[in-house]
Structures are given as C-alpha cells and as structure tokens.
C-alpha cells in the first residue's frame, strides 16, 4: 500500500536561508505521525509547505497519489489536506459558527455541513454554548478547539495540527490530546507537529525528530519515547 502522504527530499528556503534541508517521511492512512523538535527546527515550515503557503525549493510531495509542489494554497484543501495552523489563527471578528462554516468553504452539501457543525459542538461542547460569540473573545484553549474543529469541517483525509498544545493549561492540553486520540479512533489520519515531545510521542504511531532543518531520528512513538538521546534532549532527563 502506498502512503497517503509521501515527502521526498523536501527543501524549503526563506530567501537564501534554508529552513528545511532535505527531509523525507511518509504518513500512512489511519496513522498519527508526529514531527517533534525545538523552535526553529523547521517543523512549521514543513507544514506550511505541505499546505501550499510556502513553495518548496526542491523535492517532491505526493498526497493521495498527486504531486503537490505547484498546487496553489487555496486548492490544497480541496484535495483533502487540512491545516490547523500554529497560533490557531481563527477569524477573530467572526462568530464560532461562521468560523466553522468557513472550514467547509468548498463544500456544497448544506445538510452535511450542518451535521458536521453539530458534531464539532459535540466534540467541543464549549463551542456549542458560545456559537454566536466572536471567536476573538475565546480563551486560547477554546480557540485551539475551534481551529481543530474548523480544520475538520473540510472532511480531510489528512489533518495537520501545528502545535495544538502551545500556550495551553495542562488541563486544556490533556483535553486536546484526548481529542486527537478520539479522532484517530474514528479513522482520521493526523500529522502532528509538537514541541511537547512527551505528549506527542505517547500517542503517535511514527515519530520524527527534527533539528535545524533535518530529520535526525525516526522511529515508532514508543521507541522514540524510550530512546536515550530523545529523553535527554527533549524530555528533560539527565
């Protein structure tokens, strides 16, 4: 079986500065794959390139059998690749419902959209309670829920989550991680970028450790969690 997402020798540069220096990895349908690493490792750059916001300098991206390199950003979501960006980026002056509707911008099945909005409210009841509220008035954790809910509204084949735990309280973070597990159980394929290596690795099937633009270590989530160098570098152990 070929992978849902195949990244081969991807390079991305900002001007002359190469942020991603030739990485390769793949995501199989139904898996959670995580990219972990410190700030500036190139994780967010990788996701932004996959969703078309940045153009690759070299390499190949194949998603669901189609090459992505030259596809403009606004056409990528139609292929089944949804991106919940770092820093959440909800639309602050639109209501929660309107944000969710925008997640389904390219869909035309009104009844289906309505059903999926209700599903998002079941997944995150707080969003349902505040559906008429401007999204900018939500707390960070609630905004994260909205960003995830919005990304799911496109019925993606692959959901990319960039730092969903960033800036959240431990309780809120647990809730988000729990949701990721639930989504996986429903069959959603997830590419998860995290700085919180412990949380990410404990629920991932596959993990890749990135350091300054390169993948330095790959393995199953469990293996990496117990890898000595990972424990030293990312899990704060001596």
């Amino acid at each position, binding site marked *: 079986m070929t992978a849902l997402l195949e990244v081969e020798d991807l390079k991305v540069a900002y001007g002359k500065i190469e942020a991603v220096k030739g990485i390769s990895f793949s995501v199989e349908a139904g898996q959670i794959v995580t990219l972990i690493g410190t700030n500036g490792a190139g994780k967010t750059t990788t996701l932004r390139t996959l*969703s*078309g*916001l940045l153009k690759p300098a070299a390499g190949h991206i194949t998603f669901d059998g189609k090459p992505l390199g030259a596809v*403009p*950003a*606004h*056409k*990528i*979501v*139609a292929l089944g690749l*949804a*991106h919940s*960006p770092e820093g*959440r*980026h909800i*639309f*602050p*002056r*639109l209501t929660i419902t*309107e944000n969710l*509707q*925008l*997640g389904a*911008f*390219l869909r035309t099945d009104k009844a289906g959209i309505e059903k999926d909005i209700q599903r998002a409210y079941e997944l995150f009841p707080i969003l349902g309670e505040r559906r008429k509220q*401007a999204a*900018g*008035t*939500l*707390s*960070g954790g609630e*905004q994260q829920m909205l960003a995830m809910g*919005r990304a799911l509204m*496109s019925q993606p084949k692959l959901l990319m989550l960039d730092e969903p735990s960033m800036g959240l309280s431990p309780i809120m973070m647990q809730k988000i991680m729990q949701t990721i597990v639930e989504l996986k159980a429903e069959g959603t394929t997830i590419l998860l970028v995290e700085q919180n290596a412990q949380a990410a690795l404990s629920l991932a099937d596959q993990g890749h450790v990135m350091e300054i633009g390169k993948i330095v270590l790959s393995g199953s989530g469990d293996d990496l969690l117990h890898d000595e160098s990972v424990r030293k570098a990312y899990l704060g152990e001596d």
Partner: protein
Amino acid sequence: MNDLPQQLANGLLLGALYGLIAIGYTMVYGIVQLINFAHGEIFMIGGFGALTAFLILPTGTSLLIALPVMILMAMACSVLVAMGAERFAYRPLRGAPRLAPLITAIGLSIALQQAIWAFYPDAKKARPFPEFEGPRFDLGAFTIGRGDLFLLIAAPVCMIALGVFVSKTRTGRAMQATSQDPDTAKLMGINTDRIIVTAFAIGAAFAAIAAVAHGLRYGNVDFRMGFIAGLKAFTAAVLGGIGNIYGAMIGGLVLGLAEAMATAYIENIPGMSQLGGGAWKDVWAFVLLILVLLLRPQGLLGQRVADRA
C-alpha cells in the same frame, strides 16, 4: 440660522457622495492594507465614461433614458481601470515593503490624470456634464437640485446592497475572512487573489456611481476632479474607521455635514469672520481629519486591534 435645514441637506448630500467614494478606500485597505491613492482617479474616469456614453447616444436623447447607459459605462470604465491597476501595478508588489505600492498608487494617480488630460478630447479644461432641466425640488424647509435625487436614491441603495453582500453571501464571508487573516483564508480554500480583485471592483463601481452623481450635481467633469474628492473620501474613510464599510459611509456624512456647517456658519463666530465661506471648506475638512487622528485614531467605528489572542 433659518437656513439650517438647507445647510443640513447640502451637507448630507455632499457626505453621501464622499461616503460612496470612501467605500473604495476602505474595502481595499481592509483587505490588502493599501491606501489606493489612485482611487480618486478611478472616480474621475467613471465621470468621463459617463460623459462618453452620453455623447455617443443620439443627440436629443432624454437624460432619464441616457442615465442607465451612462451609469453602466461609468462602472465599466472605472472597474476595468481598477482591475488593471490591481493586476499589473499592485499585485506584483504584494509582499514588498508597504511604501512601494503606496508610491505606485501615487504615480498611477498622476498617470491617469495626465492620460485623460492628454488624450480625452477637450479635457484640458472642465467639460460640461448633462444636467436635469428644471427648477430645484422645493421640500418646504429646503430645496434640492434635480440631479441630487439620483444621489439621494443611489447612496442608500448601494450601502444596503453592500451590507447584505458582505454579511450574507459566500463571497462576502470570504472577503471578511481574507481581511482578517489572508493566509488562513487560503487554508479554507478561498482564492484570495480573486477576493482582492473583487474588493477593487466593488470600490470602483461605487466610485463610478459617485462620479455620475457628482456630474449631475455640479454640471461638469474635470481631469482634476478626483484629486480633492479622493482626499476628502480618504478623510471620510479614516474618520469612520478605515477598513469598516459602515464607518466609510458615516465618516462621509459627518465630513459632509461638518464642511457644510463650517462653510455656512464659521464666519458668524466673533473673530473668525475671515475663516468662513467656501474658500475655507477644505481647511475645515482636514482640520477635522487631524482632530480625529489625535483624539480617536481608530476612527468613529474602528475597533482597537486587540483581538489576536
């Protein structure tokens, strides 16, 4: 003060005109954070488009019948020039430092003015614009010109239509999303390039309607008419809170009223007799702009940008 109702009516009509033009500034700014200083010329070109349509129609055509053709022609000219400017002047500069498109806009403004001056027949001085014949409508406390009736109908219709478009339609929603966060709008599948062109086109169409109203009200079009009207409309947009379409209309009305009041009454204030009358009206308009920038820089309806958590 017994001419107060008349002055209020003048101010509101003038303000509606400013407001219609201001929509173009505010929509474009709201989406690409560019002050399109060529927008005054987009307005002016609409005026010449309308005049051209009138001249092409057989002589003797009643103005009432000619008017729809003139409006369509004005809109076609303005929208075409605005879309061309976006495509060939501004889009290549997207992502460049903000000063670059701003200077481009000023250059474009001069180029468009000079193009009309050089190539439109007899446009080196103001050209007469058709007017509705007949006495002014007497509404008791005040009168309005026959041509002003067009403005009186067009301005509210345009504003309501725009409000419904932005809040109720799919494209309107996409427009709001693009103005709040363009990159994330792309992630939703929104073609932001198309949204930007749409914003330019709507602004230009409104400017074209304003140009027809301006011609009917003042009886002429002039290659320089976009300069001061553009500055006033820009002031109106800032006054109302740039980026906010309702703000643009309210800013226009406030500015129009302030200008009419200042023109009529400032000379009655003891010691200020030198500063009243029509010659000083632009001064008072820009004094108002300075006061707003000092006291409420976000404008009357603008919000402080504090919504990014």
